[in-house]
């Protein structure tokens, strides 16, 4: 029986939720509003939320000064490429860990996760040298590999968690019907874990899209994604806040829209698991 919630409590909870959402969203709102101001209004002291002279000039200048479509496509290739490659590696790995665990599976999982705790800058020079020798600097394949490896622990962990919730009896039944490992993973496991795989894909696309350390270090011109596009408008000395905000808005807009349309899927996958 559902617990009765008083209207007052409901109103308070709603207000708290909206307030929390507003606080979280405020920096994005501020960025969008700044992108529509002139440079002097953007840096006015004290800061103004609204201005009298709204303008789209910053967007026009950012568009004119840089090759946005190229940065955008590079982001798409790198974010989706690294995530899909990561899934291709992680699904069999997570399957093995969830359904055929060994003595050291838990240790292996913890070790994978521990690599995420290492500061990226600690491996900057070795990785740069490896990429240099393999001629992977400023290439799509180099970035796809780097981000795939970086996000692989998260992908494996997420999939492992979803797979663990699938009753192994279902897979056993498939095996008894003559399915091999490949068929078992592709035709039985994957469709059942689809919500989990979809939310893993979405979350990792977002992570890869927003990555701004390796994508800036390992690229120059050809494979530079939107993180480098934003960095090109950032300056500690110079009043370019409005243009920087316009560039940032243009960079996050695609992923924001993607997240918006897929939020139901994302929330479902993250909160309910695979088979509930």
């Amino acid at each position, binding site marked *: 029986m559902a617990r009765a919630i008083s209207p007052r409590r409901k109103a308070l909870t709603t207000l708290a939720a909206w307030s929390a959402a507003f606080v979280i969203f405020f920096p994005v709102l501020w960025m969008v509003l700044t992108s529509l101001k002139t440079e002097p209004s953007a840096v*006015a*002291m004290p800061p103004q939320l609204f201005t009298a002279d709204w303008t789209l000039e910053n967007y026009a200048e950012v568009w004119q000064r840089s090759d946005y479509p190229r940065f955008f496509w590079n982001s798409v290739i790198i974010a989706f490429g690294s995530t899909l490659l990561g899934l291709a590696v992680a699904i069999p790995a997570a399957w093995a860990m969830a359904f055929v665990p060994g003595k050291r599976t838990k240790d292996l999982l913890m070790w994978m996760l521990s690599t995420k705790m290492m500061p990226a800058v600690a491996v900057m020079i070795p990785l740069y040298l490896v990429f240099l020798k393999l001629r992977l600097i400023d290439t799509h394949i180099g970035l796809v590999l780097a981000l795939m490896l970086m996000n692989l622990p998260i992908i494996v962990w997420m999939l492992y968690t979803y797979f663990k919730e699938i009753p192994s009896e279902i897979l056993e039944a498939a095996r008894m019907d003559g399915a091999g490992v490949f068929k078992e993973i592709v035709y039985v496991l994957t469709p059942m874990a689809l919500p989990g795989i979809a939310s893993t894909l979405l979350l990792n696309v977002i992570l890869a899209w927003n990555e701004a350390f390796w994508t*800036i270090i390992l690229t*120059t*011109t050809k494979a530079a994604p939107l993180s*480098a596009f934003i960095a*090109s408008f*950032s300056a*500690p*000395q110079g009043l370019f806040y409005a243009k920087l905000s316009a560039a940032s808005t243009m960079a996050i807009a695609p992923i924001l829209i993607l997240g918006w349309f897929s939020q139901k899927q994302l929330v479902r996958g993250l909160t309910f698991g695979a088979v509930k």
Partner: protein
Amino acid sequence: MKMTQRALLGATVSLALAGAAMAETTITVATVNNGDMVRMQGLMDDFYAKHPDIKVEWVTLEENVLRQNVTTDIATGGGQYDVITIGTYEVPIWGKQGWLESLNDLPADYDVDDLLPAIRGGLTVDGNLYASPFYGESSFLNYRKDLAEKAGITISDAPTWDEIKAAAAAMTDTEAGVYGICLRGKAGWGENMAFLTTMANSYGARWFDENWVPQFDQPEWKAVMTDYVELLTKYGPPGASNNGYNENLTLSLQGKCAMRMDATVSAGALTDPAQSEFADKVGFALAPDAGLGKRANWLWAWSLAVPASSDAKEASKTFINWATNKDYLALVASKEGWRNAPPGTRTSLYANAEYAALPFAKMTIDSINAADPTNPTVKPVPYVGVQFVAIPEFAGLATSVGELFSAALAGQKTVDEALAEAQALSVSEMTAAGYIK
């Protein structure tokens, strides 16, 4: 038939030769995002008209990110960049390391002797010019002449610190939102420590003695920090410990700083009526001194250099010659007026009557000429650099010290505590780095 074959062969050879002659060299230029660099990118048609065989690709990054990327690339011999934008701090260090290509062989029309001696000296190591200045700057005082007049005071062209303290007290009107003086307070080796190091130079303080022993425990530094904190606490804007170059420039453009000590390069914005309604009320003066023979002004240049790892050195030098030549200054002037010509690099710019007539021109060149990177302080020092110490450890150390001094300004530490911690930290780092035996 033979004739036809010969004709075809000739045509093929001609086409191949023409193709080879027109073979395009692509160079990657890494640069920072500031007004002068953005303007240069807008003027590239002139370069392409003169050099159709060279294609330029730009990598524009924020200053600190650029420094990190370029350092990584050069240190590993990556060769990703053909032309890099570097500051006066890096040139002597990188030049000594052999990371930069010498620019001694630029063509005669580059006119190396036209470079301002102070700027050229900062970019030269063992007689080799390792970078060509794109724009140079010093620091000076800008003030509102109308407020000085209203307060009944006169600020001399070469003021002393006592004069500045008295002027700040006289012009502060917090009720009207006008603050006597705006100085950098935000922590960072290029922010508050750039200013404080120059102030220290004028007070007779120094970072290290001749044996690389840190000097924050000396009375000169106590005097610097006491006056700095007092000036900003009594007459500065609220939250001064968070204000860097941008914040103070914004306050000045809005007329809220009666005086401000900062980069000469901001003079263009301050005197531009499109950016400030106080443009016609701005006066300029040299950075103050304390009667010890050194003024509190710095010297900096953003310069273009060719990494030793570049595989397109000739094309890169051609580009640098175009971007930092006298003709480039004339090109900017013809398109956007002399006010927007990159300042502080060439003697001929200041000899130009139109440029010399600008209200900030004389003070800029006088400030640059007053800076001496090889002899920056009153007492002898073992280092080169005016607002920095040209050693690789300086950026990290000065940023840590800057955080302590910013905390003192914010009232989170006393001046004595900040200085004692700065001394202990510096001794520890300099010992670890092997400077103190």
